[in-house]
């Protein structure tokens, strides 16, 4: 699965968790760019990603994701 496909899948997860059908995220999207992307929703997004891709992030990784791009890199490396 390449980055583009991963981005499409996690975009769906963001839409579902944040209850926003019109939402489009990009690699450089950060939490403050998206309404309602707070710490509570952040963890729900992480959990949904873990379930969808059958991967597991470390606590340290969850604390340090700065933007969607970093999240993509981490997913890609775990799927490889």
């Amino acid at each position, binding site marked *: 699965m390449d980055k583009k496909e991963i981005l499409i899948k996690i975009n769906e997860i963001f839409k579902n968790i944040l*209850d926003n059908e019109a939402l489009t995220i990009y690699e450089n999207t950060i939490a403050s760019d998206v309404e309602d992307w*707070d*710490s*509570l929703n952040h*963890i*729900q997004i*992480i*959990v949904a990603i*873990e379930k969808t891709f059958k991967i597991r992030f470390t*606590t*340290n990784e*969850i*604390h*340090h994701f700065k933007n969607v791009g970093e999240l993509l890199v981490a997913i890609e490396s775990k799927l490889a």
Partner: protein
Amino acid sequence: MLFNSIEFLFFFPIVTVLFFILPHRFRWQLLLGASCFFYMFFKPEYILILAATIVVDYFAGILIDEAPTEKLKKKYLLISLVANIGVLAVFKYFNFINNNVTGLAYVFGFHNPIPALNMLLPIGLSFHTFQAMSYTLEISRGNYKAEKHFGIYALYVMFYPQLVAGPIERPQNIIYQFYEEKKFYYDCVMSGLRLMLWGFLKKIVIADNLTTYTDGVFNNLHTQTSIAIVISIFFFAFQIFCDFSAYTDIARGAARVMGYELIKNFNYPFRSRSVTEFWRRWHMSLTSWFNDYLFTPLVIKNRRSISFGIIFALMITFSLSGLWHGAAWTYVSFGVMHGFATSYEFITKKWRSRLSKKINPFIYNHISQLLTFLFACFTWIFFRANTMDDAFYIVSRIPGIFNEINHWSITRSKPIFDESMSNLGHIYCFMFIIVLEGIHYLDNHYQIFHLVLKQNKFIRWTVYYSMMLIIIFFASATSHRFIYFQF
């Protein structure tokens, strides 16, 4: 030393003038010395507790930073956390736990032989221990490098404007500022003084006058009418907001005069449309502390069952947040109620979102705002009540207001309001709240604080002098301590 004391009237200008006179290399020593003096005004010997935790956290920070393994990092972090929580446990929570053990032992026919500790709570203990813990926690997460300069680290914990009642700072935000060579900027000094003036007005005029009324009611509940009790519940909401936000304004203003910027602690909390939003706007530095170091790690740990994990973390976080305020069941109840409310909001989030789309946004938002405010007022009954019995008594008296209004002729034949304040005093209290909310409304919609800055010198100074005159004419006859000092 209290911000609203005569001593501070001399302390602040002397420290500020010396700060700008001294060369940069001596300023940290001046601020540290001044902060020690400020703290020792309460109970001098308690500075030893502060000094002990500073030494422990300073070395723990370096050891965590240099530890070669994660296991070792965790070990040094644990030493720091145990030292800070241990101080809190002994000085703040020992008697509370011991009293409950005594009560429980009595129920089962036993006797608790451990006597209560007879000592005063060190001022601002919950604030500076939390700030100290955020330092070692940030280092252990790799977000901050340990500070090698002992004096600068000590100043991070002891910086006098925020030492005893916050905002609870993070090392990333403040330590680098102590290394910057601060210059005298007229605009910066004026901005700080303006913030302090607004803080003093809120504290001395609004909060202290409201305190005279609410203290009279909450301390003599059984002689009050239901009308007086209900009014005091609403008054307390504005009192606690003005009292605590005033402290933050004075602290941020005093720091800004010297060129230091402290984090924001309030963002119009009464405009919140949910309890969750309320906590993003009220005591923001404490909320973010609990969020980063307790709530989020708890959710991450229990994320296999995410809904359960979040509700569990909300209940634990808010219960402990209540306990953070004070060692009493009244504070715990306050926290637990907020835990239930935020859990309810989490569970019903999607349902409420759909509902909001079906109702006129103006109506939906204002009803949400009103319900959130009423809920906050209700929980503050427990926060302010002297005992749990008092809190339940207050709640039981609320419905009586309808009876008193229905039988108005009987009600008005007796004194309706608490007699500790004159009728004029009551009118002033209502007036202050209306004016405060009017200013908040205007600032929200038309940014009046910024508009004042854009006016010419004459108008600006007319506003400043008017504020000073308001403080002089309407200052409460009794000066009250800041509520959050006791925490």
